[in-house]
């Protein structure tokens, strides 16, 4: 029995006092004041025992941020990689005023600042050694968690220098390494968070346990925006283990001594709802409203190039098409949850979140306490995909915990998670295109209708900002919002608009009798990086080489989050089913920190986008989500995962993002491949068997 299990069984035997032992190690370390005095800056603490603790001010949802940010720090710190441990710090102005992981920004926003932090800490350790030896700093060099006296060959470990170094002022203007000197950055490094994820010891938000903690679930109105009219909690309160039932602003919470007891109590609640106006909406009506808005026209243009109407009128060949995508749930494997402890003097929140700063603000707002009285404990996320960028579930937990006086963990069931999500908006796009007498596209118009949470920007990205230099182009946008909550979903507007645009470009290529790669080449001639990415993908995929009967290849080009990706999918279609065999993805994301992490994220984004292309769809009936669990909201399984080949374009340009790079391009690459294989054009996701028959 290992130490962890030993602690668990002895605590269980003690009954009730299960706690303390389960708190992640990082919190025990924080309590170690001797070690805390060795903090060299907001990111670096060196223990007397030579361990280096790196404070990762972002959050980890699988995207590899703990590892990649550690690499940036360690590169300049010159510390022993094998002695690194990491912690998530609280919300602190020292981290720049915003803490969160959205928009694939972590590397981009940290590439220089964390190298600076690592270099600054290293210089303090070197200075401490120089003072100890009474030599000039220039005679000292840092390597592998030691400082070497280059004259005498003497060495001092970082641990022995840490206390003295922490008392020194942080140096100004520390020179950073030239990338050619990198030992860690740019090399494929193993993830630091793997060991705890293979033995069950990593603590996700849902795993938090605290002294005297209670467990809660919330019954929310099945219709978005509905409110509690009245409720009868007699039977719920009589359920074994149920402690109390409380009304909160969006529903009724059942608080109990276990999650199961709370769920059982909730089943016996009787709630009458005021359903509100969203109850009038169902998917067919929503789709019709999109179509009506587009047919009516008159939306303000989001981007105009040349004169698309005139070019269309003069085109040798014209085509029209309507594309549609559904609402989508995020469905992270860890259902939403949040643990809050509201005391008169402060609030503590333990939560797997992509938005620590926002978590602090909502907890302050809901508790009525100032933000500085709110402590956020960032936990590992069992997936986020944008859902955990929202803070609704955090505010709700604070509301529930207010009445309890003890810590309360609010856990969402899978059905809660799926039916009270903030969805990827459903969308509708009508294209018109024209090709000239030689078969090249000359005119392209798009009219998009969908609900938005951030205006035309996120609703048209992927169409509006395509890299192609089509001579005459226009896109307009109609905001049609039935009131279903919508928000960020991995790759945001690109998740639908890239499917629309890359599919329709394929339609125009075929209409003009052109090769789809050739058309893209033509319109990327002035974008050498994207063109090179396209050429690399085409070469690696064997574009143009023969395939078996019933197979096809499809291409897509994406420029989002500061990165370029080109995907070429190989599919076969038989008996109304598509099988995606292979996806070649070339990516230029600028300077790469962890190539292994890039490859993981490309495959991950493809799996996510492929689930949406093949299976995903949230439908609304009378203001309610019809799906509730993985039986009706299916996702890609191991036997459906294609072989993904990732080819990174070497680059020292500024780093782009990677977490959302490959999600948009997989649906159009697959659908274009289906066209190549069968002549059938997919204009609506998810792909239905009847579309392939």
């Amino acid at each position, binding site marked *: *029995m290992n130490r*962890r*299990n030993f602690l*668990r*069984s002895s*605590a*269980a035997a003690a009954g009730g006092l*299960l706690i303390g*032992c389960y708190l992640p190690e990082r919190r025990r370390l924080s309590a170690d004041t001797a070690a805390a005095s060795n903090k060299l800056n907001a990111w670096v603490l060196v223990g007397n025992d030579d361990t280096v603790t790196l404070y990762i001010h972002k959050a980890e949802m*699988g995207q590899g941020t703990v590892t990649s940010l550690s690499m940036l720090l360690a590169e300049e710190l010159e510390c022993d990689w094998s002695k690194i441990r990491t912690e998530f710090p609280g919300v602190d102005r020292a981290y720049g005023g915003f803490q969160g992981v959205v928009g694939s920004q972590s590397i981009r926003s940290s590439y220089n600042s964390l190298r600076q932090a690592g270099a600054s800490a290293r210089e303090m350790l070197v200075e401490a050694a120089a003072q100890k030896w009474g030599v000039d700093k220039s005679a000292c060099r840092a390597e592998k968690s030691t400082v070497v006296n280059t004259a005498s060959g003497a060495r001092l470990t970082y641990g022995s220098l840490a206390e003295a170094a922490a008392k020194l002022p942080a140096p100004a203007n520390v020179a950073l390494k030239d990338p050619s000197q990198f030992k860690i950055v740019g090399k494929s490094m*193993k*993830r630091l*968070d*793997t*060991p*705890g*994820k*293979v*033995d*069950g*010891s*990593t603590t*996700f938000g*849902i*795993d938090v*346990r605290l002294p005297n903690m209670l*467990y809660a679930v919330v019954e929310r109105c099945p219709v978005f925006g509905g409110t509690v009219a009245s409720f009868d909690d007699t039977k719920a309160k009589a359920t*074994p283990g149920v402690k109390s039932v409380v009304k909160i602003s969006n529903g009724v919470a059942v608080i109990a001594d*276990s*999650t*199961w*007891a709370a769920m*059982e109590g909730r089943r016996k609640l009787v709630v009458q709802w005021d359903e509100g106006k969203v109850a009038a909406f169902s998917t067919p009506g929503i789709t019709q409203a999109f179509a009506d808005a587009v047919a009516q026209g008159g939306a303000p243009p989001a981007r105009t190039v040349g004169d698309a109407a005139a070019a269309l009128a003069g085109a040798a060949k014209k085509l029209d098409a309507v594309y549609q995508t559904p609402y989508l749930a995020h*469905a*992270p*494997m860890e*259902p939403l949850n949040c643990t809050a402890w509201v005391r008169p003097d402060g609030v503590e929140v333990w939560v797997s979140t992509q938005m620590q700063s926002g978590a602090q603000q909502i907890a302050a707002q809901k508790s009525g306490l100032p933000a500085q009285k709110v402590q956020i404990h960032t936990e590992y996320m*069992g*997936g*986020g995909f944008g859902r955990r960028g929202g803070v609704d579930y955090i505010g709700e937990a604070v509301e529930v915990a207010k009445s309890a006086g003890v810590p309360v963990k609010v856990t969402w*069931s*899978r059905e809660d998670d799926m039916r009270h999500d903030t969805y990827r908006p459903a969308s509708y796009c009508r294209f018109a295109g024209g090709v000239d007498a030689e078969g090249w596209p000359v005119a392209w118009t798009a009219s998009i209708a969908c609900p938005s949470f951030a205006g035309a920007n996120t609703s048209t990205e992927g169409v509006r900002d395509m890299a192609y230099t089509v001579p005459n182009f226009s896109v307009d946008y109609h905001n049609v919002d039935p009131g279903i909550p919508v928000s960020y979903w991995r790759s945001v507007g690109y998740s639908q608009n890239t499917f629309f645009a890359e599919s329709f470009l394929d339609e125009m290529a075929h209409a003009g009798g052109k090769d789809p790669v050739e058309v893209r080449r033509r319109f990327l001639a002035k974008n050498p990086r994207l063109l090179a990415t396209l050429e690399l993908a085409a070469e690696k995929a064997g574009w143009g080489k023969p395939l078996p009967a019933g197979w096809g290849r499809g291409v897509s080009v994406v420029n989002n989050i500061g990165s370029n990706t080109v995907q070429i999918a190989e599919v076969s279609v038989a008996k109304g089913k598509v099988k995606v065999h292979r996806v070649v993805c070339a990516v230029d994301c600028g300077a790469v920190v962890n190539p*292994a992490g890039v490859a993981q994220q490309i*495959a*991950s*984004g*493809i*799996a*996510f986008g492929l*689930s949406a292309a093949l299976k995903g769809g949230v439908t609304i009936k009378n203001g309610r989500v019809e799906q509730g*669990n*993985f*039986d009706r909201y299916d*996702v*890609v*399984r*191991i036997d459906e*995962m294609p*072989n*993904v080949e990732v080819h990174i374009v070497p680059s020292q340009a500024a780093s782009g993002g990677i977490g959302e790079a490959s999600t948009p391009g997989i649906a159009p690459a697959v659908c274009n491949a289906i066209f190549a294989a069968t002549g059938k054009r997919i204009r609506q996701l998810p792909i239905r068997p009847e579309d392939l028959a």
Partner: protein
Amino acid sequence: MAAVNFTLNGHPQTVDAVPAMPLLWVLRDTLGMTGTKFGCGMSLCGACTVHIDGQPQRSCVTPISAVAGKKVTTIEGLSPDRSHPIQMAWIEEDVPQCGYCQSGQIMTAAALLSKTSNPTDADIDEAMRNNICRCGTYEDIRRALHRAAELKRAGGAR
């Protein structure tokens, strides 16, 4: 409430619980063993997979009364030190991303390896297709499972 006796990770365990309470919640809330994850509550995703008498089972739909007298193994009990071939291979191949589904993936994979020492891709598809991963680590899982089979052969039966 009723007392249920079973063997948990090789040790005798008694819990006092409502007989219908799923093993998942007994493990997580009553015993504080949070390595076994809640994902769907309906035996649809595999995140809660444990071994009951050596067979992979979904703890979210297994009432505690059903494990009386049985041997339950959770991710915490698979090995004392991450030395099970599946865990070693998972580390070698750096399989987890968010990691939330991986306890269930690993328990399902370990059960496959215990009965099929050299699983084919088709064996892996069949055994693993009901374990969902939203991060899409499937190719890494497949590679790691093949690697685990090699490690097991090299290290003798386990």
